[in-house]
């Protein structure tokens, strides 16, 4: 079967692509000389690893948001995580807290993302479990408020502060500190595994919440756990790397077209494929020009046409497969 073959293709090619990324860098293509350029190798490895972790987190998160919200346009930032994290980062930069250690900025961004999530959840639940539309609506509202606060901060910041905030918002994968990388790696692995374990719930939820109920799923628990895990994955990604767009929207669609919609295959494929995709985009971003290009530009430039190609081939509006 095509889907199964593609699944093993993705699983097999992802490590290859990652290895390839290690060979790429602005100082030249090829394996760095281990004697004299050992530190360059370490640098590339850490960056490829960061790309892989963030890509995996965003892709898995996107898969889950699209499945649970049953909406092809859903993406990891839909509940306002990105604006919350952006506000956290801006506050950290403005107060100078970000300068204290390399961990401070990711931590602030992550914490604010979690606070935003709690706020969105609190606003949409009136003493009971919130409805999906309630969640999305309050996500949009909280996100808008956070964005305006962020705008305000940017408008009063000094030129340098503004520069810092904008730089963070463009997103980059440059060498997160070891504890940040290690911890986020562990959390992302745990989150993706958790979502993989929920595959059958996710499968059933895409048939609609009533049908999932009839198939023997604890619908509310499943939805909330899935959204929580997915949002935390997104929060980690934003905390570590800033706002990297497009991966969480496009990789799920690409993977669904390649390996099918069964989450048992889709989640691992999205994690590995998405990770490799972002690492590869980042490798291109730091190699093709003397000055680094924001990685989001490459993800959009590579992912967009690929997505359109799949869309054209399948002719199904919105969802492809």
């Amino acid at each position: 079967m095509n889907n199964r073959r593609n699944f093993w293709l993705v699983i097999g090619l992802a490590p290859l692509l990652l290895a390839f990324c290690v060979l790429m860098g602005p100082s030249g293509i090829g394996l760095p000389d281990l004697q004299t350029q050992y530190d360059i190798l370490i640098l590339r490895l850490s960056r490829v690893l960061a790309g892989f972790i963030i890509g995996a987190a965003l892709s898995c998160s996107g898969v889950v948001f699209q499945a649970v919200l049953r909406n092809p346009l859903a993406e990891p930032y839909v509940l306002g995580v990105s604006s919350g994290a952006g506000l956290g980062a801006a506050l950290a930069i403005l107060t100078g807290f970000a300068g204290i250690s390399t961990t401070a900025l990711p931590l602030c961004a992550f914490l604010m993302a979690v606070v935003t999530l709690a706020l969105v959840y609190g606003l949409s639940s009136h003493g009971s479990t919130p409805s999906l539309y309630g969640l999305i609506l309050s996500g949009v509202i909280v996100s808008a408020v956070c964005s305006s606060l962020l705008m305000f901060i940017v408008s009063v910041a000094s030129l340098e502060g503004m520069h810092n905030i904008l730089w963070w918002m463009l997103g980059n994968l440059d060498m997160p500190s070891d504890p940040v990388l290690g911890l986020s790696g562990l959390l992302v692995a745990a989150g993706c595994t958790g979502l993989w374990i929920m595959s059958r719930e996710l499968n059933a939820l895409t048939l609609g919440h009533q049908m999932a109920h009839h198939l023997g799923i604890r619908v509310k628990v499943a939805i909330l756990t899935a959204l929580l895990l997915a949002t935390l994955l997104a929060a980690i990604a934003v905390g570590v790397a800033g706002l990297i767009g497009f991966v969480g929207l496009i990789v799920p669609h690409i993977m669904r077209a390649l390996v099918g919609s069964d989450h048992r295959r889709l989640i691992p494929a999205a994690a590995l494929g998405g990770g490799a995709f972002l690492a590869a985009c980042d490798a291109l971003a730091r190699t093709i020009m003397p000055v680094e290009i924001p990685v989001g530009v490459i993800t959009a430039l590579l992912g967009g046409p690929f997505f359109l190609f799949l869309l054209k081939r399948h002719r199904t509006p919105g969802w492809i497969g």
Partner: protein
Amino acid sequence: MTTAIHLHEVTAGYRDTPVLKGLSLEIEAGEMIGILGPNGAGKSTLFSVVSGLLKPSAGTVKLYGSEIHRMPPAERARTIAVVPQELDVPVPYTVEEIVMMGRTSAIGRFSSPTAEDRLRVERALVYTDVTDIRHRPLNELSGGERQRAIVAMVLAQEPRIILMDEATSHLDLNHRLEIMQLVERLNRDDGVTVLMISHDLQIAAEFSRRLILLDHGQVVADGTPAAVLTEDTLRRVYHCNVRVHQDPHSGGISILAAPRLPAPGSGKGLHIHIIGGGGCGEAILRRLSLCGYTLTSGVLNLGDKDAEVASALGAGTALEKPFCPISREALDEARKLARNAHALIMAPVPFGSGNLTNFDLLDEALTAGKPVFIAAGIENRDYTRNRDAVARVQVLLTRGAALYQDVTDLIPLLPTC
């Protein structure tokens, strides 16, 4: 016989407006039952309650002796399954993947489908004749194929009860029968209890041995198709005339909606004056307006529900000030309107001393030789001290006025052009 579904005094619905009101129901295992009723009767709410989607605000729902809300989800899925009217699958799952989802609760979280799971899926695919299209995405299929695939999913689930929620209403005649025969076979061979909601009374009558007719959240009739589908019962519940024929050869029942309204425009050029009040004339005004009659009404009090409807429909109305007894001026105005009318209708309006003078209009119409129609049951609407309204109706009847039960049988009585 074991009881498959037991509802005891179930009240359920929206927060403030219960749809089911103290409904009790008992269904034996192995029955095949059609649930009938007009829109809003509570059929879907009944299904939501039975499948555990909706928790009743009062009463208990038991499936095979255990309460649905206490059942672990996996056990619930093994007990009851639902075939929806339509399943919107946004993601391109293949038919086989969909059918395998019927095994969701049977397959462990950490295990993959066993040989037995595959066997059940295979059997369901064959049973519903979707083996050829097993690798096609569900959302590319025709309505009939799609519905068959969903039935296959429900089969793979192996429930003891199947709820069919208007499962065939989007299908053409051929596919409708095919699905129904499939379900009938399940019921006959495997003893699966089947409940189906259908607006197609004929299909319901043909495939179920017991029909339950719901209206306003309560059971109105319960029994064999022949016992439930009587002209009288249906007329009461659906508010329209039907003809029920039992085929002398097959015993099958056919139901025809009797011509209920004169053709649109049949009242063109005819003028009817309606005496209503308090909203009781609303239905008459609306229906007659659909038939193309020119309408007037009065005397009504300003702000009265009927007055609003009349003005919305463009009917001329003689009006009195709110909460006042009818004055001479208002009556004269109504008299002017009534004088041009070809017929007069008295809606089931309650009478007190204030609006009793409206009877004068009817008197004068009879004198002029015009037909007059009076809603039956004046005894229950007469709030005058000396039962004056009852007396006046009796006089009118002796002078040639006609009684009618409700709008449905009023319309055929009216003059047409």
